[in-house]
């Protein structure tokens, strides 16, 4: 047998590789490489002509350097020169270099093609193969133009060597895939098909890939391949394990060729010719029989090879879907594998059974395995196996077992891996709807879904439950009662509030007779959730309230009171403010009749295909996913938190709008285009509402356009002097508050300003405490006056509309004695305040980390430690930042990683953080990745000042 010693043939190369391996650092390696590159360059440029051996050696070194990840910008010409050498080893290196470093330089392509042409014509099988492999590896359009005519000739010529035929067949396949218009089979078709009969199994193995591809594109022209494939398969299947000698692998005759033959047959319907079909069925039966025979070897290779054929045969049986006997046998065989000790087999059996479940002949047989599959869902260690089990349960579900399957999936969902939760939720929702016999079960299921996995319940799901409740009057009373009960839970998911608000607004009257759910109790229950909800949910609730006024006139005063309160009627959100104003007005001026007409119960929705199904299809695209999906990691990253950036996916929105009411609870169809500029100033990207009557300080418009301090009506009367520029130390003061929310913002001899703040999602509230340190009253323009030694408080409601980098400014003016004091500070509102922590496991973290790998998504800083590098202090700071500090995620325990989502009104931005302290150097490396470049950058700036 051949043996190869280290780098034999090219000593210089082996020495060079050893040198590189011995380099202690990246720098040393680069130095060594540069030295080598200089040496090679001088050799190539030198006056002395290089012999073939040296040229080969240097080109090979260049290739090695390239494979290490360094750019190579010369040596192409020398490589091309090697192609015309008549020594195999030199030619081989030349071709390898060309194949790895494809170069579209037209001058070279011409030379390369010339060399290939010569080799193809050389009649030397070794050279011909090298040339064909080069074409197959590069597969460029230019090569197709030059050789697409020649290669079929080589492939079918009588005197072509077997190994050349193998290469020619696959070379042609590559050209056909890249430039189908240039590969014209026409006259060659029948001779190519007959390669299936070739004596040499290797030729058949290679040619069949070409034939399969061509058959998929032109099934009619190639259909004679079916009978040839069947007879070839039959000969292999019925052969003894020793018959095929070289092609027997661990006692299995020609496993790969068998698989390819079975795959080819899947391009066609069952053979029409009775004899051919009979022979094929016999083959398939033999394959199924062999699975029951005792193994000829204990080696896993033996069973794998045997089962590779078996699974391919089952695929063909499923593809035909016409032989009940075979389908049931296939199902029984897979049933055995479900309990096999090999995880691979269990996985593949689940996967394969999934397709069997959709056949009418085997559906019942699949269903008999339900307990095993449920058990797999509960006990498998590998998440991908559990995923397959969930898929199979979904596929085998019908009216008879829906309740059991849905219940199992729901209970699995409680502990399911984050990566598959959303899909599981969709599946449960679809099954519950599809197989609902009584709709109370459906309502219970969906509410359970929201309870268990609320974060993963997409809009489509809760829209759908509302549609169904509205369309079916037999379930409305039950739905009202159930949501009412569900809302009693102290902590219920926001989606539950949405469903509850909508349903009680429509059908609360159906349960109002019960004193335990009287109108006022219903209202108070809903309203107790109001303050914890996001803007769209609040908008929905406001609509539910006005509906209550219609349903239950006795609630009118209470609800009007709520609508009239400042937090509604002067809300910084235009939509909320408008709803409050309009509903209040409507309820006060409209007569009962008008009110009843306007607020009538929603009409039934037109029946449409469930939008959830569309969503699931979209999520789990069929096998035929295009290459462009390779670039599609980012979208998944956005879904970090069960819905992160879904809004940015236009098709998702379109899908939901098509069949469901608008998300902000369009109960009344009142939702119009937001009246921009009419209710609140909307120019700034960050809007801080300061209610002037709440405090003594005179807020004023910040100088920066990005930050808009919209002050209350009196802002124009706030004294004539312009606000002072921010204090020089204001940045430093700001930095103190990045990781904390409370403290003293500013202090001088006269004044102390304390801050307390709290944030939730994209909203915040900040209390400012102004303390007069003197014994003298502060006077105008401050209103009210601040007595000496006293403290007044101001409340600021904050809403983050979009991400920002400049903090809003706070301008304070007052008179102390006679002198006007004019101080401008930065309000400590930074983007990280709107962090929602996200817990995730190591695998998820790094997967998302990789998905956010565009250069602009990352911001990195390396900086010196300003404080002692105390782990506990670091942890506290990172916690204060607002994201989740993830333990046991980074393989290096010294490092810290965090994850969170920045909530702004416009969008949610998933962020990942990694802080790598280097105690020795007293340095940190901080890396931020997020789906938005400005966020990564800003967070990185802010944080770099903290440690």
């Amino acid at each position, binding site marked *: 047998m*051949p043996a190869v010693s280290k780098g034999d043939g090219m000593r210089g190369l082996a020495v060079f590789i050893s040198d590189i391996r011995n380099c202690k650092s990246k720098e040393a390696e680069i130095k060594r490489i540069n030295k080598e590159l200089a040496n090679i360059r001088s050799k190539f440029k030198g006056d002395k002509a290089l012999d073939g051996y040296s040229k080969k050696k240097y080109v090979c070194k260049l290739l090695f350097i390239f494979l290490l990840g360094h750019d190579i910008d010369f040596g192409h010409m020398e490589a091309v020169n090697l192609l015309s050498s008549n020594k195999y080893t030199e030619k081989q290196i030349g071709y390898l270099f060309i194949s790895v470093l494809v170069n579209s330089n037209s001058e070279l392509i011409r030379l390369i093609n010339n060399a290939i042409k010569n080799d193809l014509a050389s009649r030397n099988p070794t050279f011909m193969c090298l040339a064909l492999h080069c074409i197959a590896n590069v597969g460029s359009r230019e090569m197709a133009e030059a050789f697409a005519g020649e290669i079929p000739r080589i492939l079918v010529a009588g005197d072509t060597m077997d190994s050349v035929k193998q290469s020619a067949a696959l070379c042609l396949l590559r050209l056909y895939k890249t430039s189908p218009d240039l590969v014209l089979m026409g006259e060659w078709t029948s001779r190519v098909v007959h390669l299936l009969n070739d004596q040499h199994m290797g030729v058949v193995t290679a040619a069949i890939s070409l034939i399969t591809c061509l058959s998929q594109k032109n099934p009619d022209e190639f259909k004679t391949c079916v009978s040839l494939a069947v007879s070839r398969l039959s000969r292999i299947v019925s052969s003894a394990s020793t018959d095929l000698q070289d092609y027997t692998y661990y006692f299995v005759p020609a496993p790969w060729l068998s698989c390819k033959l079975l795959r080819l047959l899947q391009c066609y319907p069952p053979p029409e010719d009775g004899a051919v079909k009979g022979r094929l069925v016999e083959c398939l039966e033999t394959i199924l029989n062999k699975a029951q025979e005792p193994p000829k070897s204990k080696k896993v290779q033996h069973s794998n090879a045997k089962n590779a054929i078996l699974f391919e045969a089952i695929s063909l049986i499923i593809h035909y879907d016409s032989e009940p006997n075979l389908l049931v046998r296939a199902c029984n065989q897979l049933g055995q594998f479900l309990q096999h000790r090999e995880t691979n087999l269990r996985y593949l059996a689940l996967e394969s059974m999934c397709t069997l479940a959709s056949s009418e002949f085997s559906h019942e047989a699949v269903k008999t395995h339900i307990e095993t599959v449920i058990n797999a869902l509960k006990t498998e260690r*590998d998440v991908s196996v559990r995923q397959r089990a969930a898929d199979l349960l979904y596929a085998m579900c019908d009216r008879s077992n829906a309740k059991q399957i849905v219940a199992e999936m729901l209970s699995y969902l409680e502990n399911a891996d984050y990566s598959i939760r959303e899909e599981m939720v969709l599946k449960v929702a679809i099954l519950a709807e599809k197989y609902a016999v009584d709709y109370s079960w459906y309502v219970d299921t969906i509410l359970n879904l929201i309870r268990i996995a609320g974060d993963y319940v997409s809009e489509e799901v809760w829209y759908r439950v509302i549609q169904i409740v509205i369309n079916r009057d037999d379930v409305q009373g039950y739905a009202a009662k159930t949501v009412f009960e569900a809302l009693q839970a102290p902590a219920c998911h926001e989606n539950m509030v949405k469903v509850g608000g909508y349903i009680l607004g429509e059908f609360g009257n159906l349960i109002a007779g019960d004193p335990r759910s009287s109108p006022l109790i219903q209202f108070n229950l809903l309203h107790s959730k109001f303050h914890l909800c996001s803007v769209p949910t609040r908008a929905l609730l406001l609509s539910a309230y006005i509906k209550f006024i219609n349903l239950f006139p006795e609630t009118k005063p209470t609800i009007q009171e709520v609508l009239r309160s400042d937090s509604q009627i002067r809300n910084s959100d235009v939509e909320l403010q408008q709803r409050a104003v309009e509903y209040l007005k409507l309820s006060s001026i409209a007569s009962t009749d008008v009110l009843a007409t306007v607020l009538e119960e929603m009409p039934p929705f037109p029946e449409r295909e469930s939008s959830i199904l569309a969503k699931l299809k979209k999520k789990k695209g069929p*096998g035929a996913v295009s290459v462009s999906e390779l670039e599609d990691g980012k979208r998944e990253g956005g879904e970090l938190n069960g819905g992160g950036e879904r809004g940015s996916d236009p098709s998702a929105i379109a899908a939901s709008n098509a069949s469901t009411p608008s998300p902000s609870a369009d109960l009344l169809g009142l939702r119009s285009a937001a009246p921009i500029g009419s209710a609140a100033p909307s120019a700034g990207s960050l809007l801080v509402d300061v209610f002037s009557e709440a405090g003594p300080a005179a807020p004023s418009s910040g100088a920066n356009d990005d930050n808009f301090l919209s002050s209350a009506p009196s802002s124009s009367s706030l004294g004539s002097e312009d606000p002072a520029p921010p204090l020089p130390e204001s940045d430093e003061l700001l930095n103190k508050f990045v990781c904390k929310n409370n403290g003293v913002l500013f202090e001088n001899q006269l004044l102390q300003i304390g801050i307390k703040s709290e944030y939730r999602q994209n909203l915040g509230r900040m209390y400012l405490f102004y303390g007069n340190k003197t014994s003298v009253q502060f006077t105008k323009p401050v209103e009210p006056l601040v007595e000496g030694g006293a403290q007044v408080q101001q409340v600021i409601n904050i809403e983050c509309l979009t991400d920002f980098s400049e903090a809003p400014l706070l301008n304070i003016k007052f008179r102390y004695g006679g002198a006007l004091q004019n101080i401008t500070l930065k309000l400590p509102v930074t983007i990280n305040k709107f962090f929602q922590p996200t817990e995730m496991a190591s695998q998820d973290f790094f997967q998302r980390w990789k998905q956010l790998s565009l250069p602009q998504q990352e911001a990195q800083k390396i900086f010196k430690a300003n404080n002692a590098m105390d782990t506990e202090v670091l942890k506290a700071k990172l916690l204060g930042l607002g994201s989740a500090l993830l333990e046991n995620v980074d393989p290096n325990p010294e490092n810290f990683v965090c994850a969170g989502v920045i909530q702004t009104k416009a969008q949610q931005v998933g962020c990942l953080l990694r802080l790598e302290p280097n105690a020795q150097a007293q340095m940190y490396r901080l890396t931020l990745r997020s789906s938005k470049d400005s966020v990564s950058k800003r967070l990185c700036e802010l944080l770099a000042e903290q440690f």
Partner: protein
Amino acid sequence: MIRFVLIQNRAGKTRLAKWYMQFDDDEKQKLIEEVHAVVTVRDAKHTNFVEFRSFKIIYRRYAGLYFCICVDVADNNLAYLEAIHNFVEVLNEYFHNVCELDLVFNFYKVYTVVDEMFLAGEIRETSQTKVLKQLLLLQSLD
């Protein structure tokens, strides 16, 4: 169809990368890192298959080396799993008890072995005897 073949060690160093579809260099680097991250976290009780973007990876670990083949979702898992083993047995025979260093020092020969067994993303030759005979022949040429 095979989209790419990767041989990596546990530290993530690539010992062979063979691409059967067009990727630019940055994308290749990304794929290499991703495959490493996906495969190395799995233990022996896991399957030898992982979903990967819109493809799947069939892999097997031999000592410190991961042999990974990225194929289409509908492709036959076990056939490719054994194709890896068949390839490894050829390498083992050719390099007489192959080790990682053989692949480093003879990287240009490994490409030849690959091209003998896989071409254009398809299985070209499966007979170990035939492949080794051909390699022996090439070895004897100058």
